[in-house]
């Protein structure tokens, strides 16, 4: 239906020729923008309602004193539904470790929460299809669980800033929201998020449409295809400064995949965009000593690169 609408606008109303480069690019742009905004609005709203039932304070209680493995798996899963903003990473981290959430379990949460987020999933689903979105969720969870377990095994508690262990943490009795409050919160959340990401989506889809229409087929196959061993690490390095722009990056990556970028490289790049971020590293420096910070980002980067090679080899 959306496709018919886009076709009608471009080829009938504007009168561009079907099959022409400009016509196809504009058709692609209108169709993708409509589809993505429709998906974003409905799914962000639904996810926001679900999230109101999982405040971080509750997640903290569930994870406190959990053993490793079970704790890591639970933490990675709760990371999907617990609302998290890197701006409150410091109080969240202190609250978690102070209430007895093991360090490795805390890291599983800190990795999964930004990486497996609804915006990235909607964009992947809308543009790449549900299979790729599911692979992304699955591998994202595995990366979060494994990296958390490794950090737990390394026993790095002494590389948490000393003041964290001395902090006095109160117990907030937070009044649960009524259903009506949940709905109004979700509406407000959706509005705020869309307001923030819409320019990125439009620019991203626009650039994607341009690549789709004008860049020659197989343009990238030679240097971003499965045969180039450097493609994955380079994609990961490029993903770091693009933090939090998943909404704008995914449409571009989608178009690049059509031109020959390999799927493992695409996944690794996406994970780097969502999970590896300089601002978050700076924020976490408040609670982690350099050694643990380096170990955290080192393990995470390594895991993401492995994901890239793995999927380039098997898909």
């Amino acid at each position, binding site marked *: 239906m959306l496709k018919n609408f886009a076709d009608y606008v471009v080829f009938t109303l504007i009168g561009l020729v079907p099959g022409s480069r400009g016509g196809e690019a504009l058709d692609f742009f209108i169709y993708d923008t409509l589809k993505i905004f429709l998906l974003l609005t409905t799914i962000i709203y639904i996810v926001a309602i679900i999230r109101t039932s999982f405040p971080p304070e509750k997640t*903290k209680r569930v994870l406190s004193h959990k053993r490793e493995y079970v704790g890591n798996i639970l933490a990675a899963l709760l990371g999907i539904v617990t609302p998290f903003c890197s*701006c409150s990473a410091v109080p969240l981290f202190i*609250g978690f470790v102070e209430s007895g959430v093991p360090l490795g379990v805390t890291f599983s949460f800190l990795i999964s929460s930004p990486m497996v987020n609804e915006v990235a999933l909607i964009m992947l689903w809308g543009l790449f299809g549900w299979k790729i979105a599911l692979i992304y969720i699955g591998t994202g969870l595995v990366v979060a669980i494994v990296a958390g377990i490794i950090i737990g095994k390394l026993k790095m508690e002494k590389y948490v800033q000393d003041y964290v262990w001395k*902090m006095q943490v109160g117990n907030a009795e937070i009044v649960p929201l009524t259903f009506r409050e949940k709905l109004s*919160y979700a509406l407000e959340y959706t509005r705020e998020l869309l307001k923030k990401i819409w320019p990125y989506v439009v620019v991203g889809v626009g650039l994607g449409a341009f690549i789709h229409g004008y860049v020659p087929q197989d343009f990238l196959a030679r240097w971003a295809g499965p045969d180039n061993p450097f493609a994955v690490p380079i994609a990961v390095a490029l993903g770091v400064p693009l933090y939090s722009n998943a909404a704008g990056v995914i449409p571009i990556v989608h178009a690049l995949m059509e031109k020959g970028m390999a799927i493992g490289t695409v996944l690794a790049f996406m994970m780097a965009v969502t999970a590896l971020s300089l601002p978050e590293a700076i924020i976490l420096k408040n609670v982690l000593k350099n050694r643990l910070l380096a170990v955290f980002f080192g393990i995470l980067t390594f895991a993401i690169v492995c994901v890239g090679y793995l999927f380039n080899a098997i898909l």
Partner: protein
Amino acid sequence: MKIEILGTGCAKCKTLYENTRAAVQEKGIEAEIVKVEDIPSIMKHGVISTPALVVDGQVKFSGKVASIAEIIGML
């Protein structure tokens, strides 16, 4: 009445502060509004997601920006 806005100075915290000020003004009550930005004070309230609103020592909500109307209802 003492109202505290807990948050480490992110954009959302500023919005919550502005909304709270507007709510107090609209309701026409006497209230002291303070921004609490240091981590130990935030942690003392047991809040782990910011921004949060504390009225007379009681945490009303955390991890979201409430609208002016919502805040009026809580004062």
